[in-house]
């Protein structure tokens, strides 16, 4: 839907202040960045992570007592989808060296590296191979590749500062030192990075970066990386992909080691027992839990399944008290609500402005700070713009980019977004976009060490489901990096473990039985099963008429 006449009037206000803002940009005058103290203050007042309502303490498991958002507690304090006694583990349906749960960026990178170690690999994925948040990451991938102005030293400092100095130092070290190698690997596989004519990678700033180290492939960096590594995985004979088969429980063996998983065929509704010498959880994030009621940029399958599986098996979680809200999710037109508008727009020069056309925050603050400032502008200062459906947002002044860098820049640099808005009758090279913070990333997750190992032998974790790398807040361009860096490590570690350390033993779901007992003792009602697998967006009125949610007999 194109802008309504009312919104067009408000756009004129933005157009009025634009020439002066462009002139300031050209002079290199930036809106003043906040000091660390100012950041703390605005976060405490306006960031959803600091709201006391909507969170509670976990009653069960290794992190009992840990206060996290209700939506996480709901799925962690839930029952298995299966009754353990009904599952026959004596004859596994599938046997493999390495089982990878999740077919996104981390899982796929892991598969390639595990295969290179000589392992037979099975990737089990809930939707199609490549249906993942990785595919949707637009902005880019950080790496200190330019030795005349950058080094892992500065990358490290930026990651730490962005994460409120709470990140796990070992994991950050691994992330920043492996980064250049990861880019080289991707280039070798054929990823089409945006380059200068001499081959030097183009790079720009992201929120919270001290050097321009965000590398990119147009505005579809994640898609380009995902489709390339997926293609490579498909070329490898020893990698088998099982689609539409999410894992619903991990399987342990009598030694307490992880030894595979129970999969669920979404189409035939059968359960499948997979025995593996080692297992990698790379199941992705949690946006579709709609934490604190926020709209999300995430993939349809981002329902935190891996957290549930890992937690039931006894792996600690960390940093789940924080969730990342991306400052700029679309709020207009309604059809694209929640859609990610990459930070790269701001990196390329677009201002964030309020209803008066005024800037209110530096465009390169870390994401949490930027989001808090947007929320303050709308809810506290009441200077947001209200859409016809009652959403509120602020302007992202994308037309500045064409003025700063030449006509056609928006169309060339942001082809994906340009065509998408065009379909709704909005030309983002001429008209600004309306945006508001949107649920974007699971900062925390299962605890790992720098080899992607967990407290359960034989269980490795990589990607968004892991926690600690980004502390309390991730910087842009570090998640694509994270999935490839730690995906590769997990693949290698798991294959070596499968070859050298795995122990044969009887498969068991005793950890699920024990978890059920704990739930019962804690008085948790048996009214919710997890993992959720898929969100439900059915109209509530229709849902009331869907009467066969529990049934026997031939009806599914």
């Amino acid at each position: 839907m194109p802008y309504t006449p009312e919104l067009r009037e408000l756009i004129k206000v933005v157009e009025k202040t634009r020439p002066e803002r462009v002139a300031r940009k050209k002079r290199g005058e930036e809106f003043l960045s906040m000091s660390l103290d100012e950041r703390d203050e605005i976060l405490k007042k306006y960031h959803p992570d600091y709201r006391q309502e909507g969170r509670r303490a976990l009653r069960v498991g290794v992190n009992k007592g840990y206060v996290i958002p209700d939506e996480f507690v709901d799925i962690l304090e839930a029952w298995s989808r299966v009754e353990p006694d009904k599952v026959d583990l004596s004859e596994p349906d599938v046997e493999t060296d390495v089982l990878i749960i999740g077919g996104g960026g981390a899982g796929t990178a892991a598969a390639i590296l595990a295969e290179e170690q000589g392992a037979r690999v099975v990737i089990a994925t809930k939707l199609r191979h490549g249906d993942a948040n990785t595919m949707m990451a637009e902005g880019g991938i950080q790496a200190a590749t330019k030795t005349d102005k950058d080094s892992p030293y500065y990358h490290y400092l930026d990651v730490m500062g962005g994460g409120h100095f709470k990140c796990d130092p070992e994991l950050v070290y691994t992330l920043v030192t492996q980064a250049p190698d990861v880019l080289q690997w991707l280039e070798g596989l054929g990823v089409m990075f945006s380059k200068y004519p001499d081959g030097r990678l183009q790079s720009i700033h992201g929120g919270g970066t001290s050097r321009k180290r965000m590398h990119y492939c147009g505005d579809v960096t994640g898609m380009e990386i995902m489709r390339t590594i997926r293609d490579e995985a498909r070329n490898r004979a020893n990698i088998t992909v099982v689609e539409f088969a999410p894992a619903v429980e991990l399987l342990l063996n009598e030694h307490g080691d992880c030894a595979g998983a129970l999969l669920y065929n979404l189409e035939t509704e059968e359960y499948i027992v997979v025995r593996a010498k080692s297992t990698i959880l790379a199941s992705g994030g949690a946006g579709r839990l709609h934490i604190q009621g926020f709209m999300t940029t995430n993939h349809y399958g981002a329902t935190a399944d891996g957290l549930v599986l890992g937690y039931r098996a006894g792996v600690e979680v960390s940093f789940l008290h924080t969730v990342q809200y991306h400052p700029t999710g679309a709020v207009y037109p309604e059809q694209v609500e929640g859609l990610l508008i990459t930070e790269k727009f701001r990196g390329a020069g677009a201002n964030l402005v309020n209803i008066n056309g005024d800037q209110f925050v530096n465009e390169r603050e870390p994401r949490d700070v930027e989001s808090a400032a947007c929320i303050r502008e709308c809810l506290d200062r009441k200077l947001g713009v209200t859409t016809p459906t009652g959403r509120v947002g602020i302007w992202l002044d994308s037309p500045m980019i064409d003025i700063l860098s030449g006509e056609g820049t928006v169309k060339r640099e942001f082809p994906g977004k340009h065509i998408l808005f065009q379909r709704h009758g909005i030309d983002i090279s001429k008209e600004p976009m309306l945006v508001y913070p949107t649920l974007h990333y699971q900062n925390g997750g299962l605890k790992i060490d720098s080899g992607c190992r967990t407290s359960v032998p034989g269980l490795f974790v990589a990607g968004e489901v892991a926690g600690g790398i980004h502390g309390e807040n991730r910087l842009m361009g570090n998640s694509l990096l994270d999935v490839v860096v730690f995906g590769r490590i997990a693949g290698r570690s798991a294959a070596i473990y499968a070859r050298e350390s795995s122990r044969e033993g009887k498969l068991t779901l005793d950890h699920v039985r024990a978890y059920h007992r704990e739930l019962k003792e804690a008085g948790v009602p048996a009214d919710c099963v997890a993992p959720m697998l898929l969100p439900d967006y059915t109209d509530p009125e229709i849902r009331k008429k869907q009467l066969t949610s529990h049934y026997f007999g031939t009806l599914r």
Partner: protein
Amino acid sequence: MSVPEENKDSSTVEAPVAKKKGVPEGVGKLIPVYVMGKRYEVPETLTIMKAMEYAGFKFIRGCGCRGGICGACATVYRRAGDYRLRVGLACQTVVEPNMYLTQIPFYPANRASCDFSQLTSSPEEIFKLYPELFRCIACNLCTKACPMDVEVMDYIAALKQGNIARAATLSFNCIQCGLCASRCMGELPQYHIAQLARRIYGSKIAPQAEHLVEVAAAGSSGKYDAYLEALMKMSEEELRRLYQEREMEPEIAPEDWVPNNKEYL
């Protein structure tokens, strides 16, 4: 709502529909759409995907990123009274009154496997793996079927001429939904061929990033370890100080900008 007589279509199936409920605010009035021939009333402002969910469908296939980039929700539709088949992504296309639609969540096109590391930059590699490339009769149905406005026929033509670079660039926005292949008279798997072209271009034709070689080597030789180990042991207070003091590359700085402090480079 009843279908106006002029829009009635022979493929209409008048399924019994439960009496209507309230319409959520701000989504407009209800209009009829035909999902696989069966009539549902949905709010006029929703995308096909959200309209189907509104109607009670729960997707397993045919739904992915919900942001127009993953290619899971390719949809073919036709307006009542019109012969022309149109295409779109269910997550991006707004419903229209009396549209007949079906999703094509999977297309069984041929994908040729290869040992990519052994390939050269010669177009012959593509010809060998996908000889069907030359079955293209330039009918342009592929381009018409592309929901991303990719010039599909043009990149196929470029490949036939051996121009991998042009094919890679032209196909860059491909989301691999498979609609091109579904309409192809020559039965080409365009989207798989384009993937191969892009990978060959990215790794074997485009100028390589020489600076990566140098910096990756420096990293594995442990060049930065002393600095980093110091940071890893540092107190939060000290880290905060260094963080606050770090020199920022200006937003508008040219590519050859260098910092004053080069100690940690």
